[in-house]
């Protein structure tokens, strides 16, 4: 990066979300609902950071981030549901009992323990990403092929999760939890706590990604994006790097999903359908790919708009969103952050670089 970021803006951002909003809630200005809504947006922003790493920096358009997000959510949901079931003195979650399942499926067993749940929530997406990544990257599938195949993969997983036989609640997903680690999920203080944790994790994830992208590792990623063959002739094992960043992105998505679940109270396969997986990429495209701040702002802004527009303009919010997508891609190549950047450059009257266009 050419100029160093002034810490003041980070401080402003943190102050706004870590102090102002909670203070607003505590003093009665904001409802607890607003707090948990923003908490959920932070989870999306965490996942968006992962997408920015893999797409913005490495140039691999992965459409299965929504699936990793769901894996995280499902893991925590399984734990919460088991806790609730055990507390109610039952062996099986309600929906399984109704489906006439006799014993708890083996893959549910480890989720009795919170520790194991956390580990598995991270391990399973990582492993999945590793295997899929290995298969795809090894055979040098990239660009459009990569996008379509990962999209198809997500579709396949979506279909599997929709099945009742998968024992993950089918279309209805998993819902109706009451406590997490003994704290009541419906209490306002727990909601505030989750909000704060999400924000803290978002900040941590941001700085981790910042470190990654500014290290030589990050430069290799950008080099892969710019010219994959060149970097492999320079003796970098492209597959290793791609795999690593794919796993990291999957982990970020999973972490986002893990925090998302207790704040939303439901996870369904709907979170990973085609629409959801394209939208996730859209956050980053709108915010500005290849720019971590853009990813975070994109995720927060798009979801905020979504919430507001569905209440204010139920008939036309799809138009608003659609036009936003088209216009961003057409005119603001680098998204929201790119737009700001170019305005700044124009104002500063420095040499203004036009975006590269073919034709």
């Amino acid at each position, binding site marked *: 990066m050419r100029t160093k970021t002034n810490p003041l803006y980070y401080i402003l951002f943190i102050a706004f979300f870590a102090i102002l909003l909670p203070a607003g809630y505590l003093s009665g200005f904001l409802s607890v609902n607003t707090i*948990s809504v923003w908490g959920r947006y932070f989870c999306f922003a965490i996942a968006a950071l992962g997408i920015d790493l893999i797409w913005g920096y490495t140039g691999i358009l992965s459409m299965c981030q929504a699936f990793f997000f769901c894996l995280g959510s499902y893991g925590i949901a399984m734990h919460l549901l088991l806790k609730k079931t055990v507390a109610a003195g039952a062996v099986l979650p309600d929906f399984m009992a109704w489906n006439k399942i006799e014993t708890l499926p083996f893959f549910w067993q480890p989720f009795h323990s919170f520790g194991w749940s956390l580990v598995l929530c991270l391990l399973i997406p990582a492993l999945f990403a590793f295997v899929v990544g290995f298969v795809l990257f090894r055979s040098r599938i990239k660009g459009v092929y990569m996008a379509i195949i990962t999209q198809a993969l997500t579709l396949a997983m979506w279909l599997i999760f929709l099945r009742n036989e998968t024992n993950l609640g089918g279309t209805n997903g998993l819902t109706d939890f009451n406590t997490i680690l003994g704290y009541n999920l419906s209490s306002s203080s727990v909601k505030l706590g989750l909000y704060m944790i999400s924000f803290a994790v978002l900040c941590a994830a941001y700085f981790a990604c910042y470190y990654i992208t500014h290290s030589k590792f990050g430069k290799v990623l950008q080099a892969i994006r710019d010219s994959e063959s060149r970097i492999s002739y320079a003796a970098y094992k492209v597959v290793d790097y791609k795999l690593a960043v794919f796993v990291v992105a999957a982990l970020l998505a999973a972490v986002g999903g893990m925090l998302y679940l207790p704040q939303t109270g439901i996870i369904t396969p709907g979170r990973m359908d085609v629409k959801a997986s394209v939208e996730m990429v859209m956050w980053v495209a709108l915010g500005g790919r290849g720019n971590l701040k853009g990813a975070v702002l994109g995720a927060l802004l798009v979801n905020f708009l979504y*919430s507001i527009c569905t209440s204010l303009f139920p008939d036309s919010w799809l138009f608003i969103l659609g036009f936003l997508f088209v216009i961003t891609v057409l005119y603001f190549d680098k998204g929201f952050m790119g737009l700001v950047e170019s305005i700044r450059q124009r104002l500063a009257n420095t040499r203004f670089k036009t975006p590269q266009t073919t034709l």
Partner: protein
Amino acid sequence: MRNAFLKHLPILLLGASALFSSCNNSSAKKAGASDSATTKETVKIGVLHSLSGTMAISEVSLRDAVQMAVDEINAKGGVLGKQIEPVIVDPASDWDLFAEKAKELLIDKKVSAVFGCWTSVSRKSVLPVFEQNNGLLFYPVQYEGEECSNSVIYTGATPNQQLIPAAEYLMSEKGGGYKKFYLLGTDYVFPRTANKILKAYLLSKGIPKENIIEEYTPFHHQDYQTIISKVKRFAADGKACILSTINGDSNVPFYKEFANQGLSSATCPIMAFSVAEDELRSMDTEFLVGHLAAWNYFQSNDLPENKKFVADFKAFCAKKGLPGGDKRVTDDPICWAYTGVYLWAKAAEKAGSFEVSKVRNALYSLDFTSPDGLVKMDPRNHHLAKPVVIGEIKPDGQFDIIWKSEGLVDPQPWSPLTSPDKDCDWVNHNGTYAKK
């Protein structure tokens, strides 16, 4: 970069101020509402139906029905002297958004009751919200049962109010005396549970296991060639019928393929549980004619109450300039969405309050003359006793009523066939309890 971030600041602040202003608004309203609950002339209800996304096609009609009921009640002077003010939001067929909007309605808007949801998953999504915030949801669509929430008033059918009579009818002499059953559905919880209950029922009636086939297709499945071939083979050697819980846009390819492979309602009738008049509007009915559907209400019901209701609904849609205008039709969920509002209003009048617990208590055993005739709330739980009807699809998308239950059928949220030990009772027990 540092200056770039500066540029974001105005936007950020803009967003923040928008956020604050909207929240301030709502909190101001909130304060106003609680202060003036007795002095102001309105009472708020929430309407939580998808107005966009995949479910919009079905759910928009329910919003219209609720709106019509509200207008009628308001025209008659409202409830407890107050005008009803509906707060309409769009959960956009997004299940997570359902929960978010439910919270918004209950916590921010402080509505007295919510009328909404269609799919099971949307109901399951908002259920914890209603239970935690002591809300009341009127749910108008037939559902899979096995639920007994204190926060939901189920005006739609329980499985025994739709499935069992239909199967019984098909097995009867009059219905054709069918001996083989193909249970075909879209893969989600309602078909799964429905088929579980149907299967238990059929087995209990002595239908051998090999004469019952269960199969599921994904949502939006379009290619029914293989399945129809299977059906053909299944139906070849005896009296077979299909019990269909196929949902939404899969129905048209299903019925078309069925007809084109040479099957018909005479050789193998399809009894549908998810096809009503409103869906038939968007289908080429040619291939559906003669097939059956089981509901609690059909538009062709010739009660005078219903004739008025149908005429009013058409007039309402035409007057409001809604798509379809006076060509709109009524169907089962529309009828129960409409009835739900009246039930709530009547209960509130009876209780003399809008308080959720009082309204709920007033609802037990409450009866109301709906478009479908007199219906009655269960004395012990939150379901509705109502008649069951079976109809044959006509070319104009209406139903010929060919069977009607004698009197009202009591709801059984827990089917005695699959959960013989459970029952739902909020008067003597605390919801679901174990029967001795």
